[in-house]
């Protein structure tokens, strides 16, 4: 049994609704509908339970959290629980007046996603003509004295604009920019062939980031995420399964990772039935890959086992067919070369038409 740690972050997926339709969205393919969403009083209870359990920061996410009409109320209850409140938004659905109310409710940080540095391309990637409004949201955020992070999910169509994203972040007076090569979960996995960048693109973004980091230290924090497909070592996914992060989905399922529902055989409990603390402590889905006991070779006994925790379970499932396998992002995985070859082949081919994220169509006979 691994020693139990308390989670630091709560990822609160308030809704799966979103006006955008990004093909890289990491939401699951079977999106949760509005009727099934938790209400604000239930979120209030979750925030109180999370703070008591040791959570310090809540990341209000989705979908688009601003699609919830009661977002101000939800933010207020998170702040009342003394959680650091971070809003992860596309900006669509926010007005200046609403942002004034969010700030008064205690919102502490706005993380605004932008799909590309040029409006037409940004709107094409988002499947929604909203990029101009995002600039208003950035402006209001700064005017209201809130810290702003510009979040740029990178993939084949925009990876070459990394330097422009950094310039945009400076122009917006953001304190932080996240240049995150997308990871391939949910819709992103479905659309991988359309999204995968080439190795040369990755290398250029690394150069841009290194140069900008030394030039802008103390002025702009630059966070950079490599795509696993080109990595030599796996990321410690979620800081280790059931160690640092707890995820609550729109309808109240409690997950160790936002993609965990793709893993067959895992049973997820709901906040409607048990407390967050109980689910965290001995919920079977949390126990399944906590610590190192579940590991197979080459992870078992590896010196890095308690540093990277064997990488990502969902990726092991997607690419090795077994959630308990070593993440193929690791050079020691027998699947590593195949993963890299897949990325190289997909990125070299003409991109297929991506499938925009959408709710399942109702089938009428």
């Amino acid at each position, binding site marked *: 049994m691994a020693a139990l740690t308390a989670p630091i972050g709560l990822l609160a997926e308030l809704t799966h609704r979103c006006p955008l339709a990004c093909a890289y969205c990491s939401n699951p393919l079977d999106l949760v509908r509005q009727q099934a969403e938790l209400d604000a009083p239930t979120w209030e209870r979750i925030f109180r339970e999370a703070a008591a359990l040791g959570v*310090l*920061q809540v990341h209000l996410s989705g979908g688009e959290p601003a699609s919830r009409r009661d977002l101000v109320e939800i933010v207020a209850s998170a702040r009342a629980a003394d959680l650091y409140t971070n809003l992860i938004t596309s900006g669509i659905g926010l007005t200046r007046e609403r942002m004034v109310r969010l700030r008064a409710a205690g919102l502490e940080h706005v993380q605004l996603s932008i799909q590309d540095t040029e409006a037409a391309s940004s709107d094409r990637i988002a499947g929604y003509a909203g990029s101009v409004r995002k600039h208003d949201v950035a402006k209001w955020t700064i005017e209201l004295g809130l810290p702003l992070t510009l979040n740029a999910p990178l993939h084949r169509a925009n990876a070459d604009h990394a330097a422009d994203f950094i310039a945009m972040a400076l122009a917006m007076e953001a304190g932080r920019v996240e240049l995150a090569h997308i990871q391939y979960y949910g819709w992103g996995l479905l659309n991988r062939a359309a999204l995968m960048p080439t190795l040369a693109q990755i290398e250029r973004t690394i150069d841009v980031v290194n140069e900008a980091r030394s030039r802008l230290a103390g002025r702009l924090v630059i966070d950079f995420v490599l795509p696993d497909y080109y990595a030599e070592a796996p990321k410690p996914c979620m800081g280790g399964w059931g160690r640092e992060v707890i995820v609550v989905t729109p309808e109240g399922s409690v997950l160790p990772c936002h993609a965990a529902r793709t893993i067959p055989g895992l049973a997820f409990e709901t906040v409607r039935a048990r407390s967050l603390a109980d689910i965290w402590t001995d919920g079977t889905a949390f126990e399944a890959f906590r610590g190192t006991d579940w590991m197979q070779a080459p992870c078992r006994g590896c010196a890095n086992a308690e540093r990277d925790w064997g990488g990502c379970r969902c990726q092991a499932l997607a690419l090795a067919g077994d959630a308990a396998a070593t993440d193929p992002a690791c050079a020691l995985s027998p699947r590593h070369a195949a993963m890299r070859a897949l990325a190289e082949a997909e990125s070299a081919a003409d991109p297929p038409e991506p499938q925009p994220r959408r709710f399942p169509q109702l089938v009428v006979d």
Partner: protein
Amino acid sequence: MIPRLRPGVRIHRDRVRDRWVLLAPERVVEIDDQAHAILARVDGTATVEVIAAALADEYEADAAEITSDAAALLGDLNHKGYVAWLR
């Protein structure tokens, strides 16, 4: 030089883990008691010297030494984006 915490950065008592932390965008940084004593006096008006003098007084320590410790801590936190210099 007058330090202040950047917007979105605050000091928080992490009761579950019995420690002080700085909460910031996508970051949680543990701070020790000495760092906490310094940061608790960062208010956007006090200079490093004024902060150090107050601490030297309170803990009956050498002001020059505390000034250099405080400047090092705040310089490091500035570099990492948690602290801004007003002047």
